[in-house]
C-alpha cells in the first residue's frame, strides 16, 4: 500500500485543497479508502485524520470500507419508483441480507441506491458494473446478480 500512496502523493504539492482529488486517486488505486491511507493523506496534508474522514464520509463516491468486486445500483427515481423499484430493492435485500451501502460478506457486490439514471423510458432500471439494464423485475435482477463471479 505504501508504494501506491507514495505514487499518489508524488502528483500533489501537499496543499489542503488537494484533499478530494487525492482521496479519489487513492480509491482508484486501492478500491476504497483504508484507515491507513486516510491517515497517510492526513499526514501529507497536515490535516487531522478526523477531517479527512469527515470529507470521505460526506461524498457517496468515496468509500471507507472495502467494496464488492461488482456494484449493483437500483434506481429509485420517480419513474422507476412507480414501476416497482421498491420491490426490486426488497428482493435483493431479502435474498442477500443486505442494506443499500453494504457489501456481501464474500465481497461479491455492493448494493447502492441511485436517484435517477435519466433512462426513465426503460424503468425500472438497474445498473450493474456501469452497465444499465432496463425493464427489470425482481426475478430478472436476481438472475443478473447470480451470474456475477
Amino acid at each position, binding site marked *: 500500500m505504501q508504494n501506491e500512496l507514495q505514487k499518489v502523493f508524488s502528483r500533489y504539492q501537499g496543499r489542503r485543497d488537494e484533499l478530494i482529488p487525492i482521496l479519489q486517486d487513492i480509491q482508484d488505486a486501492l478500491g476504497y479508502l483504508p*484507515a491507513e491511507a*486516510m*491517515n497517510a493523506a492526513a*499526514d501529507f496534508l*497536515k*490535516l*487531522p*485524520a*478526523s*477531517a*479527512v*474522514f*469527515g470529507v470521505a*464520509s*460526506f*461524498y457517496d463516491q468515496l468509500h*471507507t470500507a472495502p467494496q464488492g468486486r461488482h456494484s449493483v445500483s437500483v434506481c429509485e427515481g420517480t419513474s422507476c419508483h412507480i414501476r416497482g423499484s421498491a420491490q426490486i430493492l426488497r428482493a435483493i435485500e431479502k435474498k442477500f441480507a443486505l442494506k443499500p451501502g453494504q457489501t456481501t460478506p464474500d465481497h461479491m457486490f455492493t448494493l447502492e441506491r441511485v436517484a435517477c439514471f435519466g433512462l426513465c423510458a426503460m424503468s425500472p432500471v438497474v445498473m450493474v458494473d456501469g452497465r444499465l439494464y432496463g425493464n427489470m423485475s425482481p426475478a430478472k435482477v436476481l438472475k443478473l446478480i447470480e451470474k456475477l463471479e
Partner: protein
Amino acid sequence: MSEITITIDGRQVETAEGSSILQAALDAGVYIPSLCYQPDLEPYGACRLCLVLVDGMNAMQPACMTKAVDGMVVHSDVPEVNDVRRTICELLIADHPESCLTCSSNQRCELQEIAAYLGISQQRLPAFERESILDESNPFFVRDLSKCILCGRCVRACQELRAVGAIGFAGRGYDTHVSTFMEEPINLTVCESCGECIDRCPTGALSVKSEALPPSREVRTICPYCGCGCGLVLGVRSGRIVQVRPETEHPVNRGSLCVKGRFGLDFVHSEDRLTTPLVRRDGRLTPATWDEALDLVAENLNRAKSQYGPDSVAGLSSAKCTNEENYLFQKFMRAVVGTNNVDHCARLCHASTVAGMARAFGSGAMTNSINEIEGAGCIFVIGSNTTEAHPIIALKIKAAVLKRGATLIVADPRKIELARFADVHLRQRSGTDVALLNAMMKVILDEGLADEDFIEERTENFAEFRAILEQSDLESAARITGVPAEDIRRAARMFAGAERASVIFAMGITQHTTGSDNVFALANLAMLTGNVGKESSGVNPLRGQNNVQGACDLGALPDVLPGYQKVDDPAARGKFEEAWGVPLPDEPGLTVVEMMNAAHEGRVKAMYIMGENPMLSDPDLTHVGEGLKNLDFLCVQDIFLSETAQLADVALPAACFAEKDGAFTSTERRVQRIRKAVAPPGAARPDWRIICDLSGRMGYEMRYDHPSQIMDEMAALTPIYGGISYDRLEPYGLQWPCPDAEHPGTVFLHEGGFARGLGKFHPTPFREAAELPDDEYPFILTTGRFLYHFHTGTLTRRTEGLEEISPPAPFEIHPRDAASEGIREGDVVELSTRRGAVRARAVVTERSRPGTIFMPFHFREAPANVLTNPALDPIAKIPELKVCAVKLEKLREMG
C-alpha cells in the same frame, strides 16, 4: 486600532475597527443570542441565532460574521428578528431530547437560556427521535451525541486551539454528526483528554463523568503539576474538591488545561494519604503523635550534628512545596543545623541551565515569557517534548506556527508530537547536541548571518569562541549526529534569518554530562544571532515542576542563599547572618548525587527529605537505596508514604497544595498565590508549619502566623523578590525581577544589557556522552515523560483514569530494532545496563529513533532509574539521565 461607534437597538456602542457586530455587542454588554460563537475561535456562522437587521442591508446578517462599520445601525431585539430566531431555536429543540431535568447541563445549558430569551414555552414542531449514541470510552467524560446541536465549538476548539483534531464533522445533511476518525470510540483516537471540548459544549452532549454534585464555593489557585503555572479553579463542596476548571482570565492558560491539571487531582482525597506521623518501632513504621515524632527527629538531627558535625546532616527540599516552605527549609538547614547540604530535584533537571545561563547571561531563568512564544518568527525546540511535559506551552508553539506562520525547528531523537508541525525535524543521536549546535553556528558564521552589532556591543569572549568553532565542520557534524548536513544548514538559516527567534529547551539538553556545554551552546547561538534581550526571542528553559523555579530562587541549593546570593560571598552571608541571628556556613554543600554518595560512604549520617522521592527520581536507584539504608537516621516529610518514605525512620504527614496558602513561581518567573481550598486529612500539617515546629524543638524559634509573613521576610532578603508581597500578587502574580514595591515585574530579561553586564561566549568543543553503546550493550537508553503521568507518579498514579489511559511500565523501540531483536508489541523484555535490570513491555513505534530505546521514569514497576548513569556534568553536577548503554532480552511473548 481606531475606535468606531455603531448603534444596536438604539444604544451607542464603541468598538475597535475590525471587530464583528456580535463582538462589539458582547463587549458592551448587549445580549445577542448565539450558540456557535466563541471569542477565541474563528467566527463560524453555523447556528444563525445571531441574525440581525442592519440598516441599508437587505437580508438579515449573522452578527458574528459581519464586521462592524462606523455609523452602522443594527436591530437585534425586534419582533421580526426574534421570529426567525424562534423558528431556528424550535428546530433545534425538535432535534434535542427532553431530558433537561436529569441532564448534567441543566440550568447551565445555553440552548435553555436562548429558548427562555426567545419566550419559547411549548414544543410546536414534532420531535425527531435521534438514536442515542453514548460514547463512554474515555475514563473522564461522556459523549452523548443525541444532545449535540452541531454548533462545532468542540470541533473547532480541538482543531484550532489544541491542534489535536480528535473530532470533526462526518456525514451529510441530516446525518451530519460530530465524529472521530472512522467513528472509533474516543479513547482509541488521538484525543489527549484535555477536556477543552467539555468546557465549550453549550448543552449536555459532553459532560464530565465525576461531576455529580455542583460545588458550593470556588477557590482560585495554581496547578500543582508542571512549571506552566496554569490558573485552576477548585470547586469545593462539603470539604472535598468536586470540580476542577481552568481559570478563563488567567494570562497563561486562558481557559485551557491539560489532562493532568483538569482530571489528575484525585490524589488530594486519596485513601493513601499520610494522616498521622509514623515512627519506626521494631523495624515497622507505626502511628505516633506529632510530639513523639518531632522530638525524635530533633533528637536525631541534634545527635548527628553534635557527634559528627553539621555537615553530617543533609536535606532535600521540594520543588512541589511553596516558596515560603523552600525558604524555611533552607533556613532550617543553614541556620539551625548549620550546613549548606541542601539541594532538591532541580539538580536533576536544570542544574546545567542554572549554571550555564548564569555564567553566560547572569541569570538562569527563562529569558522571556510564555505568551511571547506566540510572537516569535522562528521557534527552535530542542530536547523538550513540550506537548507531553508542558502542554500549555505547546499550545503557544502550535499557535505561533498555525496562526502566525512562525517556522518551527524541532531537534529531538524521538518523533515527538511537535515534529508534526515542524518545518525541519533534526533527529540527532542522543548526546550529540553540542556537535549539532556547533555545526549550526558554523553555518551561520560562514554564511555571514551572525548579528555582528550585537556581538560587538553586548558580548565578550567571541574570539575565543570563534577559534574553537572554526574547528568544527558540517560534514563531520552530520556524521556524529546522524542528521543530514542539508537539514542542519536549513535549520541554521531558518533560525538566523528570523527577526525574532526563540530557543525552547528542557531536559533533553540538560541531563547530560555535557549539560552545561549544551546550555552554553544554546546561549552562544542566541547571542550569535542577537536573539537575547528582546521580546519573543531568547533562551527559554522549561522548568518541570510547578515550583522548581521558586525552590531555586529561594536558595534550596547548596551554593547559594535566596536570590542566588553565593554562600561564599561574605557580604551576602553577612546580611543573612544578621537577619537570622546566627553564623552561617561558608562552604558550598553537597548536591543530590553527592549526598547519596556521601550517605553510601558514611560521611552523611542523617537526612531530612521534604516532598521528594529520590528512590524513583535519582539515577542508579540501587546505589541510592543502599545509601539511604546506610544512614543512621532518615526523616521524610510527604503527603504519601512514597518509595523513599518507606525507608524512613520517621515519616511526617504534610498538607498538599490544595490544603495550604503560599506561592509558587512558574517557569516564566511568575510568582503566584496558591490558596487553601480544603482541610488537610487527619493530622497532616502544612510543610512550613512542620519546619517551624521542628526548628523550635532544636532551639531556634521560627514564629509565623501565616505564609504571607514568611514572604515578607523573604522579600527583604532576596532582591529579585524585593517588591513582592501577598497583596501585590493579586490577581495573576508578578514576574521577577521585582526589586521594589513599585516595580511592575519583568516580562523579559536582559533588555539593553545582560544581568552580568556583557553576555559571555563559552567555547564548547564536542564531547561524547559518558557511556556509549558497545557490543555488550548495543542500544542507547534515553528517558523522559508521558503526558498522562507526572514525575515519579506519586500524584498521577492515584487517578484511576490516568492509569487506564496510560498503563504502567512500557518502553519504546523502533520497528527495525524490534525486528532484529525478535521483539513484538506487548512482549515483556528485560532491559539491563551496567547498573541494573528492569522488566517492561515493548511498544513498537517509529517515535523511537533507530538504535535508541525510550523509557518513561514514572513507573515503580519498571523504574527507569535503576538503569540510568549517575555520571555527572563537571560544572553543574547533573547526572546523565538521557544517555546510557542498554541491552535487551525478551522474556515473554505478549500474553
